[in-house]
């Protein structure tokens, strides 16, 4: 899948989790940029992403996510 398409789909998940329709995520978007991004919403978002793309992240991978870009690139790798 194209990275841009992954970003688009992840963006929809973000809108849903954070209940904000105007969220636009970029590669550098991190917890600092989105109001309400805390440990609870973070894990809700990770599990929603796993379910949506039918993938599973390793513990180390989740802990190493620095921003949305890291996650989207990893999704792309996992989807092959």
């Amino acid at each position: 899948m194209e990275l841009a398409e992954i970003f688009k789909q992840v963006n929809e998940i973000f809108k849903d989790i954070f209940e904000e329709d105007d969220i636009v995520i970029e590669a550098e978007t991190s917890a600092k940029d989105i109001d309400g991004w805390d440990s609870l919403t973070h894990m809700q978002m990770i599990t929603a992403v796993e379910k949506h793309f039918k993938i599973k992240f390793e513990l180390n991978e989740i802990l190493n996510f620095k921003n949305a870009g890291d996650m989207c690139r990893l999704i792309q790798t996992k989807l092959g």
Partner: protein
Amino acid sequence: MLFNSFEFLLFFPAVVVLFYLTPHRWRWLMVSLSSAFFMAFARLDFVLVILSIIMVNYLSAILMERSAGCYGKKWALAASLILDIGLLSYFKYFNFLADNFNSLFDLLGLNLDIPHLSVVLPLGISFYTFQAIGYNIEVYRGSMKAERNLPLFLTYLLFFPKLIAGPIERAQNFLPQLHSRISLNFHNINSGIKLMIWGFFKKLVVADRIDIYVNAVYGNIEQHSSITLFTASVLFAFQIYADFSGYTDIARGVARVMGFRLMENFERPFLALSVSEFWRRWHISLSSWADDYIFKPIVAQKRYWGNWGVLYGVIITFFVIGIWHGPSWNFVLFGLFQAVVIFYELLTKKSRKRFRKKLTSPLIKGLHNHSTRILTFLFITFSMVFFKAPTFDDAMMILSRVATFETGTLFLGSLSTFVFAWSGIVFLVLAEIRREYGWFDFGFLSNKYMLVRLLKYSLLVLIILMIGVFDGGQFIYFQF
């Protein structure tokens, strides 16, 4: 050696001069040796404890990096964690565990009678073991390289400004600083000394003055009225803040004079609007450590449990934060109270956000903010009663007496103590509000003219010398 001691007054300038005179490649050996001397001043055998922690963690990190397989890496990490936690538990928690097991077996009708150990808690052990653990986890995760230069690694854990009570400095922040060449810089010396003066003000003028009042009240709980116990509890919250953040400012100032940047440990915690926010502003080096190495891994692993996974993570994290402070159920309770409130805040975050959005009037919004701020402060004050009271029964007695609102006069103690303590608090709070909001040009310590700044700092030193408490003893966090 205490920062507020005569010995330190001689030790510190001597080390700074030696530091800048020593060539770069010998510097870390020099800093390690003087830090070992700093610690040996308390007790020589404390140095042996920290050296054993250093050697094990130094070697295990290198081993982890060398082992190709996942298995070897895990074993090296496990071995270092067992030693770090084992040594910390041996010194800090053995007698506590023995007492609890003895009581438990007593209840079951068995006489176990595990004897007590007579060991002294090595200074700073809770701080440097946590730094060592953090370092090893980072190397295990592959986010940093193992440090091969032993004098440099020795300096990371021994560095005397943060040796006794932190900050719990991250290896990824500190080790790169050791690799760079530090040259004599007027700005570092200037800003470092200013930070130290501000720290001494908080400690000697504010914290130790409050200490006199709080101890007079907490030392004699039965004799005091509801209002007095409440006042003493509020004052204790300010005391511990002034004491610990004062210590941290001195530690950071001392380090800065030598060209190092230690992390911020406090960001105006009493202005927090929630308990979760309070913990992002209070003892940041510990709370962020617990967040990175306990909370996040647990929550990530238990993410399919939903809210239960988060609750589990919050409870374990704050249990560790609580008991990290000392082997007592009061500290455990202190931690668990935080966990319960933070979990509630996480669950209700969205609804509270929606509620705030509905508040359109700036006045109502402001009132809402101030009331949540005061509520947060009162909760922290309440939980700190368990921090200060020596036993659970004492804490309960204080709380029940406060809750009865029984009439009685406010105990003032010595009037000068009461007035100086409150004046110090007002000064401290104004300085914090200014830094947080930049509301008014309080600018006590800043001015464009150097002479004016110098005069102001001289005045602060004069205030410290005149109304500082010089027999107040050690910093509260040294006991942890």
